[in-house]
């Protein structure tokens, strides 16, 4: 989850007449988790579906609503203008077909605001921009650009001076030498040409979605901005633009429109949408009995516009709230505006009768029996390593089920057996007193169109007199006392067990597992200095 750093004093200026405490009490009720606080600074985690919360401007809008200082939808005031135009060439269609943009004038950019804007850009790129694949933003100093612009393609040998560089280099070099080039260059695929935005003087101002040109760098001296968003579909690009436009307007800029034409592109609408919801749905879902006017005022506190028509509430939703899909989202907005802290939990008696799953019951019985026999329950991960599961126990590695790209070396394959894990447990406890007697029940996995999951039961005993008779008595008694199951043991062999001390466990004429003395070489591998006996049987094929 992305994190944004806020200053209480800045928020107080943006929100209006509020105390620091009111702000810190309200943040969680906007869905913002306070991560840490240090005097004036507070770091909050926000959900990526609310990119407007990537800046304090957006959070201030939310706080104003919740604290009843300013409610209702934020309206974008965009001055129609013919001065700014982008022509799109068809060459971009296959690579990155959409461009949209807006002009923001007469703002003041101090270092704080610049930080906020850069943070917003990065967060949007990672979140709704899906690491710049779906949409990416370029923010430029308007006064360094001569309109009209052209969104077109060029060869990878074309040179320009990218942001933070001091000389011209080729696009290929940018993709190889800069961090952003290396991280996002793949988005441009294998096309020989790459998308660029040029101005009327044919200067490259942007190489979307990688980097801007140095010439349009935004500094604290910049007064007027040009924002372009490119992407793979118009809808996502305009959603992204709507967030940036809303934030810039809140930051005090005057917005002006940009004309866009060519290769199926058109100017952004950034229009509000209307969704209606019935008051009874809201009351039903929340378990409340609110009047329509209370619902409308709650929605307004969530910075939406709402009017009632009979039982229906008609909501007007600003473009930047594209996380709102339908009526159920409005139920949540109403709940937030009403205040989650005002919802009193209730406990209605259950109309249903609860039941433990029969599998859990059987496992619990087996647990009780093993404890009665003096065995301690162990728990190991299903996801283990080839080393523990196969190498150490000498087992065949033919049918390993592995996971891709595990971050942990110890967790790379799914277990098909429980016993190796228990042996590993013994090896980690060689300094503890003996006898050591452990058991575990758990899921094991095998490949079977696509995967079969069964429940196994394994147990081991390690002490100086551990022997076959002892462990066979344990298994025999556990199954007989617990489940009226009788077993026989038939001479067998298994790589984990000592030859001549190993048997198949037979129940109802079917082999359900293996029992015996653990091979002394394996015991030695594990540095265990006591004889070990054990078994593993399938419960899915016996008691479940």
């Amino acid at each position, binding site marked *: 989850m992305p994190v944004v750093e806020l200053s209480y004093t800045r928020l107080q200026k943006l929100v209006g007449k509020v105390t620091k405490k009111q702000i810190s009490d309200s943040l969680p009720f906007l869905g913002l988790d306070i991560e840490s606080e240090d005097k004036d600074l507070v770091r909050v985690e926000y959900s990526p579906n609310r990119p407007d919360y990537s800046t304090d401007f957006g959070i201030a809008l939310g706080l104003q609503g919740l604290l009843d200082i300013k409610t209702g939808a934020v309206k974008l005031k965009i001055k129609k203008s013919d001065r700014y135009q982008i022509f799109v060439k068809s060459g971009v269609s296959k690579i990155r077909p959409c461009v949209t943009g807006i002009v923001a004038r007469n703002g003041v950019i101090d270092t704080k605001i610049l930080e906020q804007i850069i943070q917003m850009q990065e967060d949007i790129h990672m979140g709704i921009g899906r690491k710049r694949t779906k949409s990416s933003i370029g923010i430029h100093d308007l006064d360094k650009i001569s309109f009209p612009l052209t969104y077109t393609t060029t060869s990878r040998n074309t040179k320009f001076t990218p942001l933070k560089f001091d000389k011209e280099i080729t696009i290929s070099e940018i993709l190889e030498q800069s961090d952003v080039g290396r991280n996002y260059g793949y988005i441009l695929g294998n096309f020989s040409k790459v998308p660029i935005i040029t101005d009327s003087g044919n200067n490259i101002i942007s190489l979307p979605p990688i980097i801007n040109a140095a010439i349009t760098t935004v500094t604290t001296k910049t007064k007027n901005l040009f924002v372009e968003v490119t992407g793979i579909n118009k809808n996502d690009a305009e959603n992204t633009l709507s967030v940036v436009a809303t934030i810039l307007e809140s930051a005090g800029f005057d917005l002006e429109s940009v004309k866009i034409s060519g290769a199926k592109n058109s100017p952004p609408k950034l229009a509000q949408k209307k969704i209606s919801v019935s008051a009874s749905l809201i009351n039903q879902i*929340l378990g409340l009995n609110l009047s329509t006017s209370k619902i409308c005022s709650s929605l307004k506190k969530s910075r939406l516009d709402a009017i009632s028509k009979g039982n229906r509430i008609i909501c007007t939703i600003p473009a930047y709230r594209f996380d709102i*899909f339908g009526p159920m989202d409005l139920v949540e907005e109403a709940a937030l505006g009403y205040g989650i*802290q005002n919802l009193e939990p209730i406990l209605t008696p259950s109309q249903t009768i609860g039941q433990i799953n029969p599998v859990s019951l059987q496992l619990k019985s087996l647990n009780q029996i093993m404890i009665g026999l003096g065995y*301690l*329950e162990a728990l190991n991960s299903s996801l283990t390593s080839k080393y523990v599961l196969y190498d150490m126990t000498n087992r065949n590695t033919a049918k390993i089920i592995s996971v*891709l*790209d595990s971050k942990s070396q110890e967790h790379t394959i799914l277990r098909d057996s429980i016993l190796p894990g228990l042996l590993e447990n013994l090896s980690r406890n060689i300094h503890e007193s003996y006898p050591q007697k452990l058991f575990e029940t758990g899921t094991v996995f095998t490949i079977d169109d*696509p995967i079969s999951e069964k429940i196994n039961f394994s147990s081991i005993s390690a002490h100086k007199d551990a022997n076959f008779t002892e462990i066979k008595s344990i298994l025999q008694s556990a199954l007989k006392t617990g489940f009226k199951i009788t077993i026989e043991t038939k001479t067998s062999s298994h790589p984990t067990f000592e030859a001549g001390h190993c048997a198949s466990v037979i129940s109802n004429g079917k082999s359900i597992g293996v029992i015996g003395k653990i091979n002394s070489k394996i015991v030695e591998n594990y540095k265990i200095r006591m004889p070990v006996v054990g078994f593993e049987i399938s419960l899915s094929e016996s008691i479940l």
Partner: protein
Amino acid sequence: MSQVFHDIEKKIILSLRENPKQSPETLEKSTQLSPDQVRRGIEWLKLKDLANVHESKSIIVSLGKNGIESFQKGLPERRLLDLLKGGPRKLSDLQKDLGSVFGTSIGLARKNNWIETSSENILIKNLPLEIPGEKTLNQIGERKLPKDEIDNDDLFSLLKRPDFIVEDIVKTKEITLTDSARSIVISDSSGEIDVEAKVPDVFVARTHPLKDTIDEIREIFVTLGFSEIIGNMTQSSFWNFDALFTPQDHPARELQDTFYLDGISAKKIATPEQIRKVADSHNKNWRYHWDINEARKMVLRTHTTCITIKHLAENTPDESRVFSLGRVFRNEKVSYKHLVEFNQIEGVVVGKDANLRNLMGIQREFYKRIGITKIKFWPTFFPYTEPSLQTMVYNERLEKWIELFGMGIFRPEVTKPLGITTPVLAWGGGIERIAMLKYGLDDVREFYNNNLNWLRSATKCQ
């Protein structure tokens, strides 16, 4: 005050009353007990605060090779003087008689002005009253002695000579009785034992502490009217993600968060109608091209929600309370707060009157039953619920609010395509986190270390 003592203890106390400072060795002699019995007896008395053990180090002095020779034959200079007592002797004769100590003896006697040379002969000049070192040599020759019991000036003259003196550092123990032991009445009656004495622990066989927590949670929800359902840990992406309205390009679906099974895809994932409707919901709302091959990829379930949603899709009940409990997986770096595999509980309520306040009420009741009463609810975001909340519970030990279960009402985009028409309340969260609070653990890995020391000692009822 009268107390029952073991025979060993009695003997040691009585001996120390007669002779108040003793080493374990002298106690062995005075009590006729074996070294092991004395050791145990002292240990018991110490635990009962009846005996003090004072440990000290001392230097024990004994004779080396040359010292032993001199003890037996006399110091070289003494042997020389003895030879000269009978009158002057020739140097060559003395050399023959004294052998290897000839040089040493002549040198020392000359230096001390005991002898003089007249033409070819050596004769006594002054016969000394005593020879330095001779007294000490005879003392140590009898038996080893602590250094502080010896005249150190006298010893010094021997220390200068090679291989004369050996010094050993020896630890000694001195046992004394405490004040209370001196006055305590020792009961004579035989056959009684010390019922107040400490005894060793035995290890109790038991269920794993985490399993205890899981069982407790299971039982609480059963008594709240929920039935337990179970399902596979390996799931198609369809049930783990797509059916829960998580778009196929959502970051949670990336390899770095989710475990995909290498090269394994499911052929049958759902009914054709379910697949079609889920695809439509994605295409329409997320505006992208939904890909069935992506949905076929097998993953280790990232939550147990896939089990409950599958159950609801198969049964489409009008009224139901079910829960699922089991292992879930996340591709994380293992640390004190993260595991790749942990347990989760996930429950749903279906019914016409299922609403947010009821959902909060079920949570509050659950927390109350596990002993947590200070809770609050905050809004949050999940892709498949709307509205969504999380519970914050206050932990007294850590003195802070901790995030526990998440909850919400399944989005219509989730339920509608699967034919579910009534509201579905859903909630769930990790169990290890609750168990950590219960057992006061700060490292979640402890649950899967199978450290016998911990398993054998963790208190069952917390």
